[in-house]
């Protein structure tokens, strides 16, 4: 059997259009991406007698039973190229989406590898990097605002990003979107309850009882977290991992990002020197006037939307459908998430016992 590196070479040799491909070099696993198998490599090619190299990534689905996020490489490929065509967002170019499992054993895509730092905590280890952190936070905020105010018809004219999970979500109005998403959370509970999860269940009912005001639906990243940023010297070079993108409420991206900051040890949200910080600057750019209470609501909504499939994969692990260690490690996200929910939902602290008179 050919190694994956040889498979990549065989795949690209007939498809490479920029000169003559001569080698695949520096093929290595990339750590840190939990939801997909990710490998970095350089394609070395000859153009008019000059040897050049292209920095690339092979991003491959995991087997469905272990999949933390089950989604389509084709959809991600199309979105990346639409974003490059219709917006000024910094995203990697996607070259190929291969849905046939022949070449790489499972569906995969080959995308541009942006060279830069992918360790966001490095911006928050000392005061010396505060200006760089603010610069990256500000650019992120501007790019998010640009994404969320882009006419959804430009990116989603064919409805490709309506209900990409295929769970019956309706995107014709904001109310239908939120209502069908929450109905899905409630119905899907029996797919995630590896143990009894009353705080999560309570959160679904809270979302249903406390819907905020509507905002225009937009194509959202869907899993925006600090690890999905590539930056260097204070410049945001790229936002990556668009696999969970969908037509949704713009506040989902803000909510999930805010939520993941607590897990990731970063503080982009408080790094922008603007009244109201990140949220204030975002509101200034979009005119959406999102309140902290709405942000809390969408932290809960965003968590449930991103984590539903991941928790289902944990349940499959605990019911013996696969034997990956990662999924037990990811229990920490459920435990940390439910702890955060108790605060976001305003759970009351127990009253101290009254001493006898």
């Amino acid at each position: 059997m050919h190694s994956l590196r040889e498979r990549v070479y065989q795949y690209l040799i007939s498809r490479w259009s920029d000169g003559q491909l001569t080698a695949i070099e520096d093929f290595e696993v990339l750590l840190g991406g939990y939801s997909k198998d990710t490998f970095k490599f350089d394609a070395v090619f000859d153009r008019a007698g000059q040897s050049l190299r292209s920095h690339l990534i092979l991003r491959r689905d995991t087997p469905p039973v272990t999949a933390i996020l089950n989604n389509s490489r084709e959809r991600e490929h199309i979105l990346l190229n639409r974003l490059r065509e219709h917006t000024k967002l910094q995203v990697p170019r996607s070259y190929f989406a291969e849905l046939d499992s022949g070449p790489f054993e499972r569906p995969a895509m080959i995308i541009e590898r942006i060279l830069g730092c992918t360790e966001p905590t490095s911006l928050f280890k000392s005061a010396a990097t505060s200006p760089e952190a603010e610069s990256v936070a500000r650019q992120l905020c501007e790019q998010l605002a640009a994404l969320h105010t882009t006419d959804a018809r430009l990116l989603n004219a064919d409805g490709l990003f309506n209900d990409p999970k295929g769970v019956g979500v309706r995107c014709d109005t904001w109310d239908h979107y939120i209502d069908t998403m929450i109905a899905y959370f409630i119905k899907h509970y029996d797919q995630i309850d590896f143990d009894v999860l009353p705080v999560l269940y309570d959160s679904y009912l809270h979302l249903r009882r406390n819907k905020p005001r509507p905002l225009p639906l937009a194509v959202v990243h869907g899993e925006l977290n600090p690890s999905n940023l590539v930056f260097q010297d204070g410049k945001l070079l790229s936002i990556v991992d668009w696999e969970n993108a969908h037509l949704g409420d713009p506040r989902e991206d803000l909510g999930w990002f805010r939520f993941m900051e607590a897990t990731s040890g970063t503080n982009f949200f408080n790094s922008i020197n603007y009244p109201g910080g990140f949220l204030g600057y975002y509101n200034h750019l979009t005119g959406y006037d999102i309140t902290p209470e709405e942000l809390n609501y969408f932290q809960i909504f965003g968590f449930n939307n991103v984590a539903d499939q991941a928790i289902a994969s944990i349940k499959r692990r605990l019911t013996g459908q696969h034997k990956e260690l990662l999924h037990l490690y990811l229990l920490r996200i459920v435990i940390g998430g439910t702890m955060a929910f108790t605060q976001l939902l305003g759970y009351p602290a127990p009253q101290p016992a009254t001493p006898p008179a």
Partner: protein
Amino acid sequence: MYTKPSIVETIRAVMTSLSQDIAPELSSSRSQVCLLMAQSLLQSAIQRVEAEHAILIAEHNEMVALYQGLATELGECSGAAAERIRARGQSFGQRPPLPAPVPAGELATAHHSLSQELIHTLSDLDELIRDGDSRATAALAQVRQHLLVRTARDFQTHLVNPGSLAGRD
């Protein structure tokens, strides 16, 4: 408190990962031997987790009976050593026996069945709140007080290095 995965299931998952993810990567014979020792110790930990509580209680109660029995056996035997053994019979031998533990599986099942009813209770309270019953809001606060305490326990008991993710720091 989460009861799934159990402690034993968690250790078994680590053992499986050592076999399927780590062992194929080990090149030195020293590291391979270390892996075998680690797996042996983890298996030992599983056996202890499953048996230790019950064994300790059984042995505690057996020793109480033993100290009683030794004092009786020696009867009126004279000498300082016999006095000390009779004194142990009067002290350690009079300790009340400890109750037998509830088997871990049985305890988890009992706990789980009550926890499961919290889901139905939350649904019922939601229905009442949506119907405008303010007493249901107060009742929900009671449930949430309980959930806050147990969630905090889970956070303290289960998590190591909260705020970090392996491979992403």
